């Protein structure tokens, strides 16, 4: 093994051993339960940064990236599933997000979970999650990826239901798990389809043999599989991505997942795990690029989720739920980006969103902490003087997500929208711009209700409000830095920035297949217009938000908001009730599905079991009847023999011999 291979292995081994150790001895460490998990994660982060540096800056592994097999997991004749890993530019970029935010969330959790008796469990699960997530991004075959896919699902389940004695948390955990199973069902079928088509599950072509990403396009070209089969495979795989990344209609689990502790919401349900679907579609770009139909569907699902979630985020009262719907909406943007063929832009948004949404969630955790576990924004207000660090960092996060230049969100979001327009998806672009306005509005509604205007905090709690400990504020500050600078550093100039240079080899073939030979970005003409419209939309949304809900000196226009609400009462109600998707699911699956299940249960008990039991009863009673001829008297049997003999003899004489 080379040094780099050892480092990759360590990247997985460290969090896994951290999980095992914390699970075994964490309880004895009491308040110091973090003492294993957090240092382990810092080491993991350092190793990841080294690998990122090697991959992206030194270009040590070439365009192809580092590929190696740790050991053969399931060798079966010609077919083999291995623990094989890949570190290429895409992996490295996602590694930056996963390990950096993971590390900061671990540090933040020291303060956030300080008073919770279950903290050792919490840190064990967090390390388990980090292991799973790293396995997911390093995996170089479908089976390993699927295993990691389920492992992150498991960690997510465990952490959503962390406060399992709270019924809503236990239910939310179950909901997340079950909804994800729906997506994974399609995902597993997709993997099976891939295997039956090309007979291997390895992603890339290595010395061990050709990979799926080479074989599938070849099979399509040679006519071995029909285009509709390719589309089918892509859509089945996309189903998995829809479940994990909570896209319509499988989006219902993510808002409820906010029942988990806030660091979990920040790490798993905003910055990393929910990006797994985006990452996977980007990773599988050679498959998706072959089927324009599937790509269009990805774009449609993405942009629809974006506007749906944004419309719900406008009226929610729970601070974390607003952020959850905002996450859905931004994930929708990413899928829209993938669908229009702007893979690099989608990954760019994944990165920037990871940082500013992680920041916003951790900030919301700090707010919730300050007002003593109150999440209703109607019971906040005027907090900005009392928790200044939280306020300033969250303000930065809000501006970043709204897409005001030159903060990070502007560059990534604008790139997705511009690509949509230039690749011929004008509808996606139009809806995207509307969503950009809504983003600004709902984020500054959140800021206004939480930090500005007069205080609605419970008077008993009011004097006790204090800024969070340093272990919580330092991660906020550290996350605010990339939220401001990341776009400028790796995203400027658009479409040819540092990130695009890194990712170019990964998406090269897909871009060629899709024939997206667009003109390079110039700061004039169509590019400048689109850039300007994007910025204007964001500014418009933010202005609305400030106008309605205040900012520092501006007062909230409670009356205007109420009048607007009254004017659009039906829309408001629909948005407030999340467009009744939970009720719809309840009707279709719980009530109607339950009715069907009960009918089938009746059929099973009465008809199927009845038939089987009837046959058994018949056999038993027949046996009981026939048993009576066993008298035990030898002469009765002899009589039977004689009678039989007589019958045979008579038959012979009168029938056969005649």
């Amino acid at each position, binding site marked *: 093994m080379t040094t780099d291979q050892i480092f990759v292995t360590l990247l997985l081994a460290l969090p896994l051993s951290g999980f095992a150790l914390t699970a075994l001895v964490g309880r004895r460490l009491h308040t110091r339960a973090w003492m294993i998990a957090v240092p382990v994660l810092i080491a993991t982060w350092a190793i990841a940064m080294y690998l990122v540096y090697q991959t992206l800056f030194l270009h040590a592994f070439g365009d192809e990236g580092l590929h190696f097999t740790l050991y053969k997991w399931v060798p079966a004749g010609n077919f083999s599933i291995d623990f094989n890993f890949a570190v290429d530019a895409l992996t490295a970029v996602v590694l930056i997000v996963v390990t950096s935010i993971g590390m900061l969330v671990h540090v933040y959790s020291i303060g956030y979970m300080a008073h919770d008796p279950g903290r050792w469990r919490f840190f064990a699960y967090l390390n388990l999650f980090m292991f799973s997530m790293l396995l997911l991004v390093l995996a170089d075959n479908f089976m390993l990826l699927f295993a990691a896919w389920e492992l992150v699902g498991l960690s997510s389940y465990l952490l959503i239901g962390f406060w399992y004695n709270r019924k809503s948390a236990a239910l939310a955990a179950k909901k997340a798990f079950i909804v994800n199973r729906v997506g994974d069902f399609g995902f597993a079928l997709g993997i099976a389809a891939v295997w039956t088509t090309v007979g291997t599950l390895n992603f890339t072509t290595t010395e061990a043999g050709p990979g799926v990403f080479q074989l599938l396009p070849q099979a399509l070209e040679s006519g071995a599989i029909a285009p509709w089969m390719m589309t089918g495979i892509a859509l089945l795989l996309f189903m998995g991505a829809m479940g994990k990344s909570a896209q319509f209609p499988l989006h219902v689990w993510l808002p409820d997942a906010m029942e988990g502790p806030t660091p979990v919401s920040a790490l798993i349900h905003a910055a990393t795990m929910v990006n797994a679907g985006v990452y996977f579609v980007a990773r599988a770009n050679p498959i998706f690029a072959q089927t324009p139909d599937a790509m269009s569907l990805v774009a449609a699902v993405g942009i629809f989720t974006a506007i749906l979630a944004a419309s719900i985020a406008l009226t929610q009262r729970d601070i974390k739920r607003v952020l959850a719907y905002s996450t859905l909406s931004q994930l929708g943007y990413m899928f829209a980006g993938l669908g229009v063929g702007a893979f690099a832009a989608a990954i760019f948004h994944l990165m920037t969103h990871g940082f500013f949404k992680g920041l916003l969630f951790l900030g919301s955790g700090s707010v919730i902490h300050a007002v003593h576990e109150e999440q209703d924004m109607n019971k906040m207000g005027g907090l900005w003087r009392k928790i200044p660090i939280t306020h300033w960092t969250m303000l930065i996060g809000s501006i970043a997500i709204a897409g005001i230049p030159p903060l990070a969100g502007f560059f990534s979001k604008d790139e997705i929208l511009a690509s949509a327009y230039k690749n011929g998806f004008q509808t996606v672009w139009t809806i995207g711009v509307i969503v950009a306005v809504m983003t600004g509005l709902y984020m500054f509604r959140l800021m206004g209700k939480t930090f500005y205007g007069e205080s609605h905090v419970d008077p008993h709690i009011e004097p006790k409000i204090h800024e969070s400990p340093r272990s919580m504020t330092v991660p906020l500050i550290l996350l605010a830095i990339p939220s401001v600078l990341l776009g400028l550093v790796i995203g400027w100039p658009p479409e040819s920035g540092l990130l695009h240079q890194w990712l170019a080899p990964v998406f090269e073939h897909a871009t060629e297949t899709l024939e997206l030979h667009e003109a390079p970005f110039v700061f004039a003409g169509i590019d400048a217009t689109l850039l300007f419209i994007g910025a204007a939309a964001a500014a418009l949304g933010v202005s609305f938000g400030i106008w309605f809900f205040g900012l520092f000196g501006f007062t909230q226009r409670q009356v205007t908001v109420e009048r607007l609400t009254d004017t659009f009462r039906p829309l408001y109600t629909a948005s407030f009730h999340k467009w009744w998707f939970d009720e719809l699911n309840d009707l279709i699956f719980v009530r109607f599905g339950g009715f069907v299940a009960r009918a089938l249960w009746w059929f099973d008990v009465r008809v199927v079991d009845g038939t089987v039991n009837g046959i058994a009863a018949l056999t038993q009673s027949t046996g009981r009847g026939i*048993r009576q001829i066993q008298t035990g*008297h*030898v002469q009765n049997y002899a*009589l039977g023999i004689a009678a039989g003999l007589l019958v045979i003899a008579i038959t012979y004489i009168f029938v056969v011999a005649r």
Partner: protein
Amino acid sequence: MSHSLDAYLILSALLFGVGTFGFLARRNAIAMLMSIELMLNGVNLAAVAFGAFTPELQAHAALIALIVMAVAAAEATVGLAIVIAIYRNRRTPLVDEYSSMRE
């Protein structure tokens, strides 16, 4: 000696019939064994009669008769042994008292 096969066969059938009746009707185990001997002898008589009237079958008939006699001797030995064993156990030779094999 009569020169009709039918006479032998009728006698043989009578012997077999008497034996069968005895086996089914007598309650004493020893008498039942004796009835079996009668049935065997009836069959044996038929076999030898066929042999005497059909030259090609003569050798076979003699062989069959000898084997049947040997088997009858063996059967009688084992049968008597069993009956004595049962008698020691149950203190009765009457078979309708033996009903422990009942359902």
